[in-house]
């Protein structure tokens, strides 16, 4: 038997609604608080929001292949400190996750993580955009998402085939949207700031024409398509319209796109070099609105740890990406996005897309699986890469004050974070 907990004084916010109610956790399952054994450990949630565990659809964990940047252990600690009880590990590892054997290997490694790790597969062998990966074999071992990461699949024919072939397996093809040719040498968003800073840019249209194309292919094939890390107002509008017309498309935005824009690159801070790039101020504002109006389903961390040496280079040679697991929730809350929209985008909807249960199935009621996140929405903290649990030192929010802190995280009934600290 795992530890028994009773969570007192918090406000539960889930798909059912908002209510002040205590809840017990026994053997990894939620129980009514009256049913807690007298030995149950008290968890003080006063002033806090009790949510179903956060789920990140876009995490790069480094292991296997890039252990200098992150391991399952360090990435798992970062995840639970950020309130995530489940993360979807991207397949751009070494080796790439393109066979069932690699899936099993990564799952074995992921036992070292404090959170649940779901494993995404590749669309093509070695993520090269050549032959299709064995999607049936991947589906058979439980893979639900496949992505080639980076710029995604450039060939419209290959994407069409992947969508068609994947449909009977119920696998979702996840695609970043970026026309590589229109982004040649791009270091940032093309606009006033790229013109001023003398850096080659990529226009919003390089993303939007791929979103239009991929929506058309989703319509043609009827297959499930998920857009990864969309970043422009035009993309949000196209995807929102496609969803409202009933197409099986979904989309995510990275937390940093809710808070930063191209003007923030004025000091050439390579930790703010991300792909897709930080966009115009108007895109940032549109992204916040798209989360609220559900044109965008999910907010993701796009956690991309890098070792210091890969960032301390000239801007055009620095590797892109920012760590995000420990800041994503606070970034969204700091932008004054209503907490129920944040929780829908960071817990209910990604869990549903990942097949972990509908928002009502996962609601905080007796009998549900005890993956919970307890959030103090008012507590502020200053981001310091030296105090983050991730091995990556590349936070786009280094030195910034954020509001909204994870007080406790419960994974499978186990209190892995308490008082904002990992419980070893």
């Amino acid at each position, binding site marked *: 038997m795992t530890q028994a907990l009773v969570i007192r004084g918090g406000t539960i916010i889930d798909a059912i609604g908002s209510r002040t109610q205590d809840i017990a956790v026994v053997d990894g399952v939620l129980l009514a608080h009256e049913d807690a054994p007298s030995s149950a450990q008290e968890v003080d949630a006063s002033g806090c929001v009790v949510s179903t565990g956060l789920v990140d659809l876009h995490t790069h964990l480094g292991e296997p292949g890039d252990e200098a940047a992150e391991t399952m252990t360090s990435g798992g600690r970062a995840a639970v400190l950020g309130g995530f009880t489940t993360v979807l590990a991207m397949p751009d590892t070494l080796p790439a996750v393109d066979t069932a054997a690699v899936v099993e290997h990564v799952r074995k490694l992921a036992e070292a993580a404090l959170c649940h790790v779901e494993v995404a597969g590749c669309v093509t062998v070695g993520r090269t955009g050549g032959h299709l990966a064995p999607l049936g074999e991947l589906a058979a071992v439980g893979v639900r998402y496949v992505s080639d990461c980076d710029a995604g699949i450039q060939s419209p024919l290959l994407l069409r085939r992947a969508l068609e072939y994947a449909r009977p397996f119920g696998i979702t093809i996840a695609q970043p949207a970026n026309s590589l040719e229109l982004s040649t040498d791009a270091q940032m968003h093309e606009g006033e700031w790229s013109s001023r800073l*003398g850096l080659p840019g990529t226009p919003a249209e390089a993303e939007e024409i791929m979103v239009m194309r991929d929506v058309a292919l989703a319509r043609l094939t009827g297959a499930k398509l998920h857009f990864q890390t969309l970043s422009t107002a035009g993309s949000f509008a196209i995807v929102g319209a496609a969803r409202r017309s009933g197409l099986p498309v979904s989309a995510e935005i990275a937390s940093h796109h809710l808070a930063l824009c191209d003007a923030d690159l004025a*000091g050439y801070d390579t930790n703010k070099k991300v792909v897709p790039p930080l966009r115009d101020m108007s895109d940032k504002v549109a992204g916040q609105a798209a989360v609220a109006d559900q044109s965008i389903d999910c907010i993701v961390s796009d956690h991309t740890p890098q070792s210091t040496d890969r960032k301390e280079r000239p*801007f055009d040679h620095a590797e892109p990406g920012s760590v995000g697991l420990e800041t994503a929730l606070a970034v969204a809350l700091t932008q004054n996005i209503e907490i129920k929209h944040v929780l829908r985008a960071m817990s209910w909807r990604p869990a549903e897309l990942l097949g972990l249960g509908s928002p009502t199935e996962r609601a905080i009621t007796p009998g549900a699986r005890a993956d919970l996140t307890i959030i103090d929405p008012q507590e502020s903290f200053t981001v310091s890469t030296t105090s983050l649990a991730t091995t990556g030192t590349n936070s786009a929010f280094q030195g910034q004050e954020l509001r909204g802190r994870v007080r406790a995280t419960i994974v499978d009934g186990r209190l892995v974070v308490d008082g904002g600290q990992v419980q070893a």
Partner: protein
Amino acid sequence: MNHLLSIDELSEADLREVLRITPTFAEVAQRRIAKVPALRGQTVALLFYEDSTRTRLSFEVAAKRLSADTLNVSVKTSSVNKGESLRDTAETIEAMGIDAVVVRHRSSGVPWQLTKWVDAAVVNAGDGWHQHPTQALLDCFTLQQKLGDLSGSHILMVGDIKHSRVARSNVSALTMLGAEVTLVAPPTLLPPAIHTWPVRTSHDLDKALATADGVYLLRMQSERQNEALIPDLREYTTLYGLTAERAAKLDPTVPIMHPGPMNRGVEIAADVPDLDQVIVVDQVRNGVAVRMAVLFLLLGSGGSDLPPNAAPQAVLV
């Protein structure tokens, strides 16, 4: 001022101060012993990641005329690979007790990054497509010598604006001094958000030349045709080159400038550089004096303590 990174970071007062004290340093070059002790005991590192004979020599002469020691650090382009840490290089230089680092790099932003890792004054000698502030200072100084106060004067910059740090720096400096700037280029060689710049644009060189008080030609690189930015150099010359016919129509008092090296027969017809109104040699000469002024303001005993209207003569004896 602690560093010279960009014209955009200078106030109009800073800019005018550099131009105001430059003649004093130009005068040093006329002396029998063209050397003053202003920066004796100080060391200036010339950190050039990109070949540039004329800019490096200009800074070296400027530093030496002020009695500073110079240290040439040429980093071959081929060794600037992805594995090299900029920080390691910066900290190595810092450990040697350098007072100023003059840096040229093919990547935009490198001088900014260096300021995070070194205490020395950083002078940007050209970063990527971004800035080349001493070039703009010397160009403004040279234009003022010919035209007087630049307020209201109409200056054309012709050519590859998009990839040009010279253009970015000069647009800022010239407009700060009150000049009206027109950029003449095909749309493919203008920066994407050109409407946010305080300039006019034109695709008709003949029309623009008719009202120009000064003409600044930029170097046209042949690789631009490989990127489909222009069809070929012949068409570029026809539309945007200063041909002999265009030069003949120009008032002989209108100065013609170029940052060098010139592609004769491309942006400028072969014989045009020999006209008296082409003042490329003045630009090079003034470059040394402007760079002396910059190094003096950054490192001289006055430095930022220099009273606003003080003449630097006192320390130049």
